C-alpha cells in the first residue's frame, strides 16, 4: 500500500473515517444510556461532513485517464467517479432524511449513520473494483449494513421480519454469487477483471456468470430474485428504505457494469439475451404488481423493481451507450426515489409511518411544496418530461435501439405506460381528498434540505441534463 493507493481510494477512506468518528462521538455522547433520546445533531453533522469530504475527494480526484491502485484491485475512472458521486449524494440525502426520524423513533443514531456510511463505502468499492474478490467484499460491505438497518427498528416486529428476510435471503444469494465467482475462477484461472476480458467462452464460465448475476440481481431486486424487496421495504424503517432502495441499486449496477459490459464485452452476444430476459421479467412484474398497491412503501418497492428492469435494458445493450445510460439513470433514480421517500418522511400517523396512499390526501393544502415535490418525483419516476426520469429513459431506449434490441425497448416503453397509472395515483393523492385526522406533518429543516436537493436533481437532470450527459458519455466512452 502506498500513498498513491490511499489517495486513489480517498473517498472510501474518508467515509470509513467518518463512520468511525460517528461511532466514537456517539459512544461518547451516549455514555451508558441504552436508548438515549438525542437532542444533539452532532452525529448527523459529522456524517454529513464525512459525505461532503468524500464527495469533494471524488470530484477532485483525477478520473481520466483511469487510475489503477492497490495492485490492480481498484480503479478510479469515470464510472467510479460517477457512481461515487451518486452514492455519496444518496448517503447525504439518506443522512438528512433520517435525522428527524431517527431521533423521533429513538433508533440508535450513531450506529445508524455509521451503517449508512459503511454501506455507501461498499457500493463505492463495487464500482471501483477490478477484481471479483473486491467486488465480493464490496457487495458484503454494501449489503450487511443494509440487513442491520432493515432490522434496526427493533420495537417493530415488521422491522425484525424485514431484517430476517433480508439477511437470510441475502446470505442465500451471496452463496450463489460466490459460487459464481468460483466457477468463473475455475474456468478462467483468474479473478482479475482485466485478465478475464479475454477469457474464452465455456459452459463453466457461463455458469459462473449466471450465478454471479444472481448475487448482483438480488441486490438490484431483479425478478426473480426480488422477493425480499417489497417485504423489506414495507417493514424496514422508512429512512433506511429510502437509502437502501438507491444504494443497493448503485452497488449492484456498478458491479454489473464492471463485470458484463466491461470485462465480458466480448461475450455480449451470449449474456445479453439473458439480461434482456431478466429485464423484461423485471419490468413486467414490477410494474404490474405495483398497480393495485395501496401501501406507498410497497408501491415504491415494486417501483424499484421495475426500475431495476429499466436499468437492465442499459446493461443488456452494453457498450458505451448502454453503460452511460445506466449511469445516468442511477443518478436520476437516486434523486427521484429519495425525493418520493422524503415526502413520506414528512408524515407521521400517530407515531408510526404514514405509508398508505390515503395518508397523503390533502397534503397539498398543508404542505404545498411537499405535494409538488411528490408530484414531480412521481412524474419523473413515470418517465415523463420535464423531469429527469424522461431523459434517463430516453438514453436507455436509445441504447437498446442502437443495439438492435427493439423488442426490449418496446416492452420497456409499454410497461412504463403501465407505471404511469400508479405513479399518477401517488401524484394525485396529495391534491385531492380530505386530510386524514390522524396524520400529522412533521416539518424539519434537514428533510426539507434533502427534498430541495432531490427536487433540484430531478429538475436539473430533466431540463439541463447536458453536463451529466457529457460526463456519462465520457465515463463510458472507453467501452465499445
Amino acid at each position, binding site marked *: 500500500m502506498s500513498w498513491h493507493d490511499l489517495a486513489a481510494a480517498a473517498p472510501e477512506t474518508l467515509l470509513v473515517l467518518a463512520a468511525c468518528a460517528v461511532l466514537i462521538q456517539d459512544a461518547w455522547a451516549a455514555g451508558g444510556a441504552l436508548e438515549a433520546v438525542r437532542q444533539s445533531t452532532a452525529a448527523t453533522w459529522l456524517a454529513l461532513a464525512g459525505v461532503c469530504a468524500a464527495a469533494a475527494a471524488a470530484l477532485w480526484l483525477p478520473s481520466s485517464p483511469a487510475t489503477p491502485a492497490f495492485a490492480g484491485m481498484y480503479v478510479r475512472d469515470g464510472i467510479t467517479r460517477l457512481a461515487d458521486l451518486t452514492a455519496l449524494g444518496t448517503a447525504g440525502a439518506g443522512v438528512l432524511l433520517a435525522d428527524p426520524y431517527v431521533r423521533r423513533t429513538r433508533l440508535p443514531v450513531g450506529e445508524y449513520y455509521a451503517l449508512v456510511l459503511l454501506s455507501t463505502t461498499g457500493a463505492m468499492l463495487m464500482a471501483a473494483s477490478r477484481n471479483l474478490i473486491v467486488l465480493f467484499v464490496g457487495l458484503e460491505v454494501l449489503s450487511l449494513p443494509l440487513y442491520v438497518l432493515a432490522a434496526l427498528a427493533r420495537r417493530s416486529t415488521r422491522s425484525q421480519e424485514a431484517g430476517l428476510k433480508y439477511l437470510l435471503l441475502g446470505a442465500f444469494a451471496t452463496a450463489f454469487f460466490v*459460487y459464481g465467482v468460483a466457477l468463473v475462477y475455475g474456468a478462467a484461472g483468474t479473478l482479475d477483471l482485466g485478465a478475464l476480458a479475454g477469457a474464452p467462452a465455456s459452459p463453466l464460465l457461463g455458469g459462473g456468470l449466471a450465478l454471479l448475476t444472481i448475487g448482483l440481481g438480488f441486490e438490484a431486486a431483479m425478478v426473480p430474485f426480488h422477493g425480499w424487496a417489497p417485504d423489506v421495504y414495507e417493514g424496514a424503517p422508512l429512512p433506511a428504505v429510502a437509502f437502501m432502495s438507491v444504494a443497493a441499486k448503485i452497488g449492484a449496477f456498478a458491479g454489473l457494469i464492471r463485470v458484463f459490459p466491461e470485462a465480458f464485452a466480448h461475450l455480449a452476444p451470449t449474456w445479453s439475451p439473458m439480461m434482456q430476459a431478466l429485464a423484461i421479467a423485471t419490468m413486467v412484474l414490477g410494474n404490474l404488481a405495483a398497480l393495485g398497491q395501496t401501501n406507498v412503501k410497497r408501491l415504491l418497492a415494486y417501483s424499484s423493481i421495475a426500475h431495476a428492469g429499466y436499468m437492465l435494458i442499459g446493461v443488456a445493450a452494453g457498450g458505451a451507450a448502454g453503460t452511460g445510460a445506466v449511469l445516468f439513470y442511477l443518478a436520476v433514480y437516486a434523486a427521484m426515489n429519495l425525493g418520493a421517500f422524503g415526502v413520506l418522511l414528512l408524515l407521521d400517523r400517530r407515531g408510526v409511518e404514514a405509508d398508505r396512499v390515503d395518508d397523503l390526501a390533502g397534503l397539498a393544502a398543508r404542505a404545498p411544496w411537499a405535494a409538488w415535490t411528490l408530484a414531480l418525483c412521481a412524474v419523473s419516476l413515470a418517465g415523463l418530461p420535464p423531469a429527469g426520469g424522461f431523459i434517463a429513459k430516453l438514453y436507455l431506449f436509445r441504447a437498446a435501439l442502437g443495439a438492435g434490441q427493439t423488442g426490449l425497448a418496446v416492452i420497456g416503453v409499454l410497461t412504463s405506460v403501465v407505471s404511469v397509472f400508479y405513479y399518477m395515483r401517488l401524484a394525485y393523492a396529495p391534491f385531492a381528498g380530505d386530510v386524514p385526522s390522524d396524520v400529522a406533518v412533521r416539518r424539519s429543516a434537514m428533510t426539507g434540505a434533502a427534498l430541495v436537493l432531490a427536487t433540484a436533481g430531478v429538475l436539473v437532470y430533466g431540463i439541463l441534463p447536458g453536463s451529466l450527459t457529457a460526463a456519462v458519455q465520457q465515463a463510458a466512452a472507453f467501452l465499445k
Partner: protein
Amino acid sequence: MSVPAAYYLSLSALLFTLGAAGVLVRRSALIVFMSVELMLNAVNLTLVTFARLRGAVDGQVLVFFVLVVAAAEVVVGLAIIVDVFRSRETVDIDDADLLRG
C-alpha cells in the same frame, strides 16, 4: 492430486444443492441459516479445488474472505434471530408473514 478435480467439484455441487434444499424446506430460521453455511462451505470446496487445479492461491484467498463474511453474517443474523425470538417466542420463518402482497 490423485483424486480427479471433478470429484471434488461434484461433491461441492451436491453439498450446495443440499444447502439450497435446506433453505427451501426448513422452517427454523436457525437451520435455514445453517443451510446457507452449508452452501458457503460447498463453494469453498470448489474454490480450493480450483485453486489447486490452477496452482494459484487466489482461490484460497477468496475462501478466507468467505469465512470472514460468513462469520459476520452469522453474528448479525443470530442477533436478528434472537431479536425476533424475543418478540415472537418462535424462530419459525413461516410465522414471519406480516409483510406480503
